[in-house]
């Protein structure tokens, strides 16, 4: 873990570096290559939107970036550290201290209140009860759910669950926020509010944001848009103007 926590990192080292990353699901006849050699470099403080057709490998790449999955080949360096050389525990600690992840399928704990779901990452960070509650309430308020903290996922709409998932990802103020279609279930009014929130976190707290989206409107909020096609990066451009 020391290699991961070693601070400060030299300024010119990118936060994320993907070198020729591939991911193959299955074996033999049934094998399917979801990523076919992705090169990607993301600097600290960037706000990146990932777009591309369904099945182009966006979620696969996000899972690898989030250290939830490992690439079949290629190298992934996080703050200059080779992630594939880390042990399971080191990767867990990396997730705990640096990453926030919003899953495409929310992945909230069932029968557990919104507040308890949101404070879970803080619990694993060993925060005191009072701090946990204050921060979790703050995060829930930020996504407009301050009145829903006692509700369990089953008692929340899809959009509300998604916002709980976002609150859980931002509650720790992670170095890198990975969000897989964070506005997929939200109306456009809410979507814009969430985007404002992400932009705010990116600007004020220096959180690097990597967000998958299908909506060009949302991609407008990013500083940079990466297009995936068939498991490769097809285009990678900077937005001229930002909202």
């Amino acid at each position, binding site marked *: 873990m020391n290699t991961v926590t070693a601070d400060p990192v030299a300024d010119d080292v990118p936060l994320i570096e993907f070198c020729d990353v591939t991911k193959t699901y299955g074996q033999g006849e049934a094998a399917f290559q979801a990523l076919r050699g992705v090169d990607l470099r993301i600097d600290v403080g960037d706000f990146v939107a990932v777009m591309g057709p369904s099945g182009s490998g966006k979620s696969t790449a996000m899972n690898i970036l989030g250290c*939830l999955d490992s690439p079949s080949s290629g190298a992934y360096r996080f703050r200059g550290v080779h992630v594939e050389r880390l042990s399971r525990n080191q990767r867990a600690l990396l997730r705990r201290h640096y*990453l926030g992840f919003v899953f495409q399928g929310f*992945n909230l704990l069932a029968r557990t209140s919104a507040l308890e779901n949101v404070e879970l990452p803080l*619990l*694993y960070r060993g925060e005191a009860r009072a701090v946990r509650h204050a921060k979790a309430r703050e995060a829930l308020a930020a996504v407009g759910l301050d009145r829903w903290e006692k509700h369990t996922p089953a008692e929340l709409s899809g959009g509300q669950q998604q916002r709980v998932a976002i609150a859980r990802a931002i509650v720790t103020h992670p170095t890198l926020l990975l969000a897989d279609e964070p506005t997929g279930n939200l109306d456009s009014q809410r979507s814009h509010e969430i985007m404002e929130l992400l932009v705010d976190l990116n600007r004020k707290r220096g959180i690097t944001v990597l967000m998958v989206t299908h909506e060009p409107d949302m991609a407008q909020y990013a500083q940079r848009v990466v297009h995936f096609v068939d498991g490769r990066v097809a285009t990678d451009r900077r937005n001229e103007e930002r909202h």
Partner: protein
Amino acid sequence: MFWSSVLLALRAIRRNLLRSFLTILGIVIGVGAVITMVTLGNGATQAVSEQIASLGSNLVIIRPGKRLGPGRDEAGSPNFKAADADAIVAQISALNAVAPVASKSVTVVYTAKNWSTTITGSTDAYFTTGNWRLAAGRLFTDAEQRAGKAVCVIGATVRKELFGEQMPVGDQLRIKNFACEVIGLLQSKGQSTMGMDQDDTIVMPLRTLQRRLTGTQDVNTLMVSVQDGANTDRIMADLRLLMRERRKIAANEDDNFSILDTRQIADAMTGTTKVLTMLLGAVAAVSLLVGGIGIMNIMLVSVTERTREIGIRLAIGALEREVLLQFLIEAVALAALGGIVGITLATLASVGLAALMQVPYVFDPSINLLSFLFSAAIGVIFGYFPARRAAQLDPIEALRHE
């Protein structure tokens, strides 16, 4: 890390109340059944031992036939005579008393009431060998014994059935065709477990019984009370030689009688109840097993959901060992709770049932511990090991688990 795991475990128990309840129930039933059964069995064994102890501590019993109990070979083994008892008294030392005993089942009548019981014919020595104490009245006089007078000493049950609360001493019982004066009342020895009521007895002089009821000179049993500190084995050997001699058994022939001391009788009888206890225990062990399988089921059914839960925890930065600690605490807490409730209920049930069955309540720490450990092991194994397998997956695989 430990306290946050405790907190997480308690939260997991709370949000899966039904599952937790069923797990606890499985353990409660298993532990409760085993402990109750074994405790009652132990109580029965102890009751039998106590009853045997009440026979008298140093008692040796001589009966015709090669073996005691069912299948006794009576052919070619004549009964004893009263003279055998006299010979023992004359020739063997270190004895308290020797009682020749014959008995007969009869119906006795007092005023309008009648009662079926067993009448024992013997001498005063019978009260010594049988550890009997008088509650009222007196024992037989030598004259009464010699003359075969119609007098008797009755047990507490016979008194209750025929006389109620009334004092029986001095009254007359009607036994078959003769009247018999009650001269003494025995102290109660209490109910026995084997359905055999020791207080349901009438004792009269041997000669009276022989003349008026059996019509023979036969004696069925010789009861010999050995003095404290005497060598029972040597006395039994002497008794054997004496009886062989008196019954004119040739050197190459087997005994046609058997000599047992209370220890051997106790072993035989407690042996039976011990087998019974083991049987009960085995039946109860099945319920422990069924409870265990119930827990297994609940745990395995919930594996899918829990695998996803583990995936979520790993994804947001939990270490494998933190997840495992949480699941271990959860399993131990449920198992311990189930064990404690099971032991409590079993203790209540055992005390209640023991009172109902009139056997003593005997606390057996080992069976409490054993059944508790067994159910705890089941809870922990089936709560912990599926969790361990899930926690060793890549987070993404655990999350994808269907």
